[in-house]
């Protein structure tokens, strides 16, 4: 017989109340852990998605929209950039690389991006981690297509299969404007390894194929019959929706002193929008930050209320336990030892709740990261952030212990003689 066994028996005798109270601590802990872990992990995932791009040029309405559309494929960019403008920008500065991209088509809801060949050879979706093929090869000829890992898993496509792209994002909102480019089958030639970025849910092809598809539409409207070839393309058909730019850097470094200067230079051109993706992600963080701080405040409030429920549960039990406390005192157990047992009881509820919270948090993170990956292709690490976990678990346990202080004082003050006399 020892103090712990007395405490455990006491908790066991109030099993339902103990379980409910510990569960409320678990829910609060899990909520906080999930919120904080996902916040950290999702912003890391967003930062990863920008890859080695220093500057992004588009004709979108704002730099943030340009990044959301151009890097995270939120929507197809609304305005095009001419090929001539691309050449002008590319030739105006000795960029390390300048990758043209064009969006606007989709396959079963997955976005399709037509990209220049440097997208696979020079651009890295995550710094230090260039594209890797899981199967096949990168597109090298028109009408070849390469799948991001999420798109491959979600669509079930395999190498050699033929696919037809849909004009637009393929959502029901587009109604009759969405149509399938049924004349031009694309052949799946490669499947990429996961990169942990939004690119994983994209199908990639070359620019010529995309231009041919859209030139075909133009020619049909003009009443020209027959399939379009490269030779039929006009300058107006050669449009892109974004340019990923990287400036030269010293070996082993990602930053360049010229980024800001070049950013300012490009901004003078009012026909385009230029964005520094890293800056825009920080901006996004500050916008969303207010919302998730609200969730975290909610989690703290739930944790506080669970602390109050521990206090109430134990305080209510004190009335029934006066005889037990008085008896222990009569047997010679010191006041402080009994006080310690009550605090231990509250702390154990907190420990059980915090452990349960970690398990729930892991499950919650796994569900949330699965949903993020499925919905927007954002690969978020489902493990708990160790530093936040230690702080939150310690906070839950300390709060629970504090909730035991009032009942412990009540126990300390319990009169012995009065509570051992037979009740009338």
């Amino acid at each position: 017989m020892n103090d712990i066994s007395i405490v455990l028996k006491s908790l066991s005798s109030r099993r339902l109340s103990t379980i409910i109270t510990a569960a409320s601590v678990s829910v609060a802990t899990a909520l906080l852990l999930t919120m904080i872990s996902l916040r950290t992990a999702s912003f890391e995932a967003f930062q990863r998605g920008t890859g080695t791009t220093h500057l992004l040029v588009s004709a979108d309405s704002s730099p943030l929209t340009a990044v959301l559309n151009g890097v995270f494929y939120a929507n197809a960019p609304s305005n095009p950039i001419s090929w001539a403008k691309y050449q002008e920008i590319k030739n105006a500065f000795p960029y390390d690389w300048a990758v043209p991209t064009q969006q606007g088509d989709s396959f079963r809801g997955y976005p399709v991006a037509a990209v220049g060949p440097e997208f696979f050879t020079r651009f890295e979706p995550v710094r230090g981690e260039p594209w890797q093929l899981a199967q096949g090869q990168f597109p090298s000829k028109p009408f070849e297509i390469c799948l991001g890992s999420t798109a491959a898993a979600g669509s079930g496509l395999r190498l050699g299969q033929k696919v037809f792209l849909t004009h637009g994002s393929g959502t029901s909102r587009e109604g009759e404007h969405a149509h399938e480019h049924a004349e031009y089958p694309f052949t799946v030639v490669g499947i990429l390894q996961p990169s942990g970025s939004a690119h994983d849910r994209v199908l990639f092809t070359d620019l010529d194929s995309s231009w041919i598809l859209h030139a075909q539409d133009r020619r049909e409207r003009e009443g020209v019959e027959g399939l379009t070839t490269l030779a039929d393309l006009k300058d107006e058909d050669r449009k892109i929706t974004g340019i990923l730019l990287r400036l030269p850097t010293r070996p082993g470094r990602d930053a360049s002193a010229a980024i800001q200067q070049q950013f300012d230079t490009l901004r003078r051109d009012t026909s385009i929008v230029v964005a520094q993706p890293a800056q825009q992600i920080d901006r996004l963080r500050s916008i969303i930050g207010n919302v998730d701080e609200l969730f975290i405040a909610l989690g703290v409030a739930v944790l506080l209320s669970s602390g109050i429920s521990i206090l109430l549960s134990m305080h209510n039990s004190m009335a029934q336990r006066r005889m037990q406390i008085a008896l222990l005192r009569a047997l010679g157990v010191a006041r402080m030892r009994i006080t310690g047992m009550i605090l231990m009881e509250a702390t154990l509820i907190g420990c059980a709740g915090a452990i349960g919270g970690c398990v729930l948090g892991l499950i919650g993170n796994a569900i949330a990261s699965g949903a993020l990956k499925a919905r927007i292709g954002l690969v978020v690490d489902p493990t708990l952030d160790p530093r936040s976990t230690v702080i939150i678990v310690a906070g839950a346990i300390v709060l629970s212990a504090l909730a035991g202080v009032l009942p412990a004082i009540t126990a300390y003050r319990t009169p012995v003689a009065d509570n051992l006399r037979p009740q009338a």
Partner: protein
Amino acid sequence: MNNAVRLENLNFDYGKDFSLSIKELSLNKGEMALISGGSGSGKSTLLWLIAGLLRAKSGSITVAGQRMDGASESAADRIRARHIGMVFQTHHLLPEFSAQDNVALALMAAGEPEKTHAARARELLNKLGIERVNVPVANLSVGQQQRVAVARAIVCKPAIVLADEPTASLDDVNASQAMDLIQQACREAGAALLCASHDRAMQSRFERVIQVDSFVRTERSQAHSGARA
């Protein structure tokens, strides 16, 4: 040193309504005495004073050669745990604990090595006729619960057992059996017994009867003596 307990020049009061004054009272090792008196006469108060659960205004209380008066609360707790066993009218067993655990509580309070608790408690309970030592005491009969309460009082081999109205809620037959049990257990444990009871029939069981009324002044007795004067 042959005294299990010794009280000298002891004074205690509950304000003006009740005061207790004892010039000298001692109980030898193994001696059994009954504290007799009516309800509210101060029998329990005397037991609480000896147990260190109430503090005297002045005087000395010595239990097994150790001064209880003037001792710090924690020192009094230790003396009570090691040298005093207590039996109550309603047993005061913890219902969610087994018989063995209820007895082990006393060993824990006395600081006995934890690994000896189960064996010592079980052995004593078996000796007192309790075989189902691991069932919650709530599942035992009243008579068995009484045996568990007695086992808890004597398991630490105390110098004295203080019994507060141990038979008040029992009929005559059961009261007699309960007292047989308590007295025999104390005898075998070598403990003195100080038993408080308002039941005059109990007096024949004890070699010594202490009338608590002789130590106590109450508002009623003062009024009575004032009227006589």
